[in-house]
């Protein structure tokens, strides 16, 4: 019995079905064919990238002595869901924590505001960096503490008590570092200072990753595509520093109780043999969990032990700078080897007076270096700046002078492979035009001839000056890393940088420095076994004079160039010369003679009172 009256309603019912299916297909198209938003959200849900940390490269000195290594440390992890029947008292005693700490820590972990990635199914960090010794006790009892696990990490350990500034340290990345470099994730470690920072890419290696599948409860269910996309970690490369640990240790000993810096360079290669900044600190203070508090303490120390004065301290170079002046005047034809200038206890001209000590006068260049005559170099600069044959005006003369200084590595960063280098100050014509409102004359600036006034250098730049004279006219950018495992140091650290001065003039300056050791201001640097060349510096400043020394040895085929700078140490000969001499002896002979050892001990115990003024 057909019901024909309402048969047409089959089209309505069929139409309803059609409309529903069409609506759903349109909706599907919106969801599936639009942007990749849902895809990335699904990936975020499902993929858990298990990072495998590579071991960080270790660090050796130039003789293969181990300076920095890694030590396993252990993080205690907890899976909340699995914690049951825990003997809390025993647990706390084993870890050496209080019940209160335990309760607070467990609360913090469960608080999803403080710990956004919390899941009661996955491992959460309970207690970080347990040293191996304490860990072994814990491990014995681990089977009793259900739900607790151990994760291995490494912490940086120092095999030396020295080199703190050079080595630097490692700590968790800051948010800024995470933002700037895709490589880092919060919680990673990064080099913060020293070579740990400047060689971070080499030392850190490359993180490995396992792409794991994580279910809705945070449990790991296996490898994505059976590990086809996983990457193995690449271990960090070890570094060999150019530092000689023994020389460095001696340098740090000698600088005890003083402020200042020692830098020694191998002139042929530009390798830094020692770089002491005083006061220093024990690198062990930066190990492990205590780093934060130790850093705070040192940052509030008025002596600023964290500051690497060897590269970041800028000082008036004093008389060590005279060598560069002699070179410039010779090259520019202002003086010849036989040009003599008068010095009547100083430079006197037009009411201007720069004092000097008693010595024979007038005198030519070589004795002027040997006796460190102020008058000679003031006259030299005066004649250069007043010379209107060679230079149109004083500005052009000073610009020429500045170019010479810059060619010797002053006024700009040398480019040492350590973070935090300062550039020092070499004034140019514009600087004086501004400072003196366009009315200045040679006398206004005369003190720059003797390394005073506006001129400042870093101890590294002073040492580099010594290396340049030792090389008779060129330097190689000083650097602290001699070799990277399985790699090369940058080519820029091998190039010879020639100054604007010819070799023949360097010979004269070297001879003057040799005379200074033999019969001038640096007599105490003399050594019977090799020919030492040196130049003292006594830099005036608001307090007591700074004591400086720059030298190299042996005179022919030099092995070492040294700069010593002792703040408020008085005459260059008081601290600078003897300390420099001991450094040279240690490096060239590999040891100190008994007499020198006694001298070293006495310098170690001579402390300078800096009062409590903030530096």
């Amino acid at each position, binding site marked *: *019995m*057909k*019901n024909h*009256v*309402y*048969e047409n*309603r*089959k089209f*309505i*019912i*069929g139409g*309803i*079905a*059609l409309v*529903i*299916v069409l*609506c*759903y*297909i349109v*909706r*599907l*198209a919106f*969801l*599936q*064919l*639009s942007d990749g*938003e*849902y*895809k990335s*959200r*699904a*990936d975020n*849900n*499902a*993929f858990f990238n298990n990072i495998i940390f590579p071991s960080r490269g270790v660090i050796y000195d130039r003789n293969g002595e181990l300076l920095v290594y890694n030590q396993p440390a252990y993080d205690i992890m907890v899976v909340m869901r699995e914690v049951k029947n825990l003997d809390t008292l025993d647990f706390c005693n084993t870890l050496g924590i209080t019940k209160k700490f335990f309760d607070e820590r467990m609360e913090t972990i469960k608080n999803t505001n403080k710990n956004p990635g919390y899941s009661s199914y996955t491992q959460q960090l309970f207690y970080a960096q347990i040293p191996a010794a304490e860990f072994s006790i814990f491990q014995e009892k681990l089977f009793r503490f259900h739900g607790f696990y151990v994760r291995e990490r490494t912490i940086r350990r120092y095999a030396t008590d020295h080199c703190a500034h050079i080595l630097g340290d490692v700590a968790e990345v800051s948010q800024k570092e995470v933002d700037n470099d895709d490589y880092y994730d919060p919680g990673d470690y990064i080099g913060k200072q020293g070579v740990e920072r400047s060689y971070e890419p080499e030392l850190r290696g490359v993180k490995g990753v396992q792409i794991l*599948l*994580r*279910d*809705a*409860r945070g449990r790991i*269910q*296996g490898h994505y595509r059976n590990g086809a996309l996983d990457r193995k970690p690449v271990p960090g490369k070890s570094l060999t520093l150019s530092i000689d640990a023994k020389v460095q240790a001696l340098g740090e000993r000698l600088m005890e109780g003083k402020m200042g810096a020692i830098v020694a360079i191998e002139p042929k290669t530009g390798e830094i043999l020692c770089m002491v900044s005083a006061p220093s600190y024990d690198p062990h203070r930066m190990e492990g969990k205590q780093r934060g508090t130790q850093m705070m303490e040192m940052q509030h120390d008025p002596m600023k032990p964290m500051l690497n004065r060897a590269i970041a301290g800028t000082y008036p170079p004093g008389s060590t700078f005279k060598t560069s002046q002699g070179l410039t005047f010779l090259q520019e034809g202002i003086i010849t080897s036989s040009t003599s200038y008068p010095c009547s206890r100083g430079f006197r001209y037009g009411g201007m007076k720069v004092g000097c000590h008693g010595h024979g006068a007038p005198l030519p260049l070589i004795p002027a270096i040997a006796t460190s005559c102020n008058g000679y170099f003031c006259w030299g600069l005066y004649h250069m700046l007043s010379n209107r044959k060679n230079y149109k005006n004083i500005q052009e003369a000073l610009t020429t002078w500045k170019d010479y200084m810059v060619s010797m590595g002053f006024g700009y960063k040398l480019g040492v492979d350590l973070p935090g280098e300062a550039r020092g100050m070499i004034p140019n014509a514009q600087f004086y035009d501004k400072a003196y409102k366009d009315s200045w004359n040679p006398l206004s600036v005369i003190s720059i001839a003797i390394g005073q006034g506006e001129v400042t250098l870093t101890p590294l730049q002073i040492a580099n000056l010594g290396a340049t004279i030792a090389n008779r006219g060129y330097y190689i950018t000083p650097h602290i890393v001699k070799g990277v495992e399985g790699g090369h140091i940058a080519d820029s650290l091998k190039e010879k940088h020639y100054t604007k001065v010819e070799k023949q003039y360097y010979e004269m300056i070297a001879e003057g420095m040799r005379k200074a050791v033999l019969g001038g201001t640096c007599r105490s640097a003399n050594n019977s076994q090799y020919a030492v060349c040196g130049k003292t510096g006594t830099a005036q400043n608001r307090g007591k004079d700074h004591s400086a020394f720059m030298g190299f040895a042996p005179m022919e085929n030099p092995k070492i160039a040294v700069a010593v700078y002792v703040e408020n140490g008085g005459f260059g000969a008081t601290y600078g010369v003897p300390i420099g001499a001991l450094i040279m002896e240690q490096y060239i002979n590999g040891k100190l003679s008994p007499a020198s050892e006694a001298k070293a001990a006495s310098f170690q115990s001579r402390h300078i009172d800096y009062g409590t003024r903030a530096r």
Partner: protein
Amino acid sequence: MKRTMEQETGSKGIFLSIDWITILLYVILIVWGWFSVCGACYDFNNPDLFSWETNSGKQIVWGGSSLVLAAVLMLIEKRFYDTAAYVIYGALMLLLMVTIVIAPDTKGSRSWLPITSSVKIQPAEFAKFAVALALGKLMDKYGFNIKKPKDIGIAIALIIFPMLLIIAQKETGSALVYFAFFLMLYREGMTGSLLFCGFACVVYFVVGMKFSQDYIANMPVSIGEFSVLMLAMIFTIGMVWTYCHNRFAVRLMAAVCFGATLLAMLFSLFVIPFDVCYVMLGACILMILYIIGLAIYTRLYKYALIALFAIVSCSLFYMSSTLFAHLADHQRTRIEVLLGMKDDPRGAGYNVNQAKIAIGSGGLTGKGFLNGTQTKLKYVPEQHTDFIFCTVGEEEGFVGSAGVLIVYLFFIWRLIIVAERQPDTMGRVYGYCVLCIFLFHLFINVGMVLGLTPVIGIPLPFFSYGGSSLWGFTLLLFIFLRMDAERNLKRQ
């Protein structure tokens, strides 16, 4: 001898008359469903898809036994159902009642009867065919007239009774499926205005709730309230126009209602902002009084019904707001999330949100069989049962999921054709019951996965994991196919 011959040609005729197209679509859906269950139930500890330990292995058993069940059903003559329809109905109602009492509490519902320790059945899945049979039998009765209040009353009672029993089992979702039978009643001649009223109620509720907190311009007028009252006016006036053909009344009511509303809006906009809805409500009351007056004056009960509709329309918004305020928090949140008033991806919206991620991440061609991360890693709760469509969307992409929908569309269209060719009312009614149930399941299940319909826990036929639902749907379908196969036989 002659009789045997007749029987043989009869059974041969039956075999030739079987609707193989429907069976082909059925097999396609079951096999396709099994692949989806594999993805949804993948167990990392037990990757063997055929093991009895895994759901995918069990689903093979359910599917195989369904085919056996189908074959058996093809052997049972239509005459049997014709005779036993009410008995079957009675028996299953009894079973539903017993279930309320003896079923153990499973996730808050008492609808699962344990057969053995691991096998459970859900009588609600099997009650549908009994209701369909009983309706077919009832409406096939000589002299049944759907326009007669008594006859339609019995039919509706047959539907409502199991619904109440299932609601008592706390399986509201399964109970709602019985609304599908109203679509069948519509096909059989039930007035369309009832369907329209149901549709209007849903529109009022959705619009009213969703925009109840939004305001028009800078006036204190709730968009929800305004829209509902506006719709009530339009629907009421439209009904007077359609059913009573009283042009004068239509013009008068339209002029008063829309005129008053417009004036109130202008006043509120330019003079003093006030709640225009009061004016609209007043206009509605005037309109209702006018219609009641017409009903009394003309003695046409149509006017009375329209007046009733208008009263319900106007009051529904206020009733539902009150009801809404009295709902339990989680129910209210669920409605708010569904209507898009609240974004709650961790709470009530979690399922739907994760389902959307799963489907959306499938892209055009999907991630491939067993490569869906969302589903394999169990991000979508209930993904092997109610949310199985996620797996299709994720692993087979737009191509696969649209394909499933199109196969379903063919399936339903085919059932319409088969139902329409039935020689008697019983076959046609039963057929429409079957196809309306499939349509309802498809509508609600896929809609909820796509975030378009409320989250009501009902399975997607042939796809969702589970023996009860698969057997239930097979039972429903193959009784109909057997009836259809007999269409060319004369009634004995």
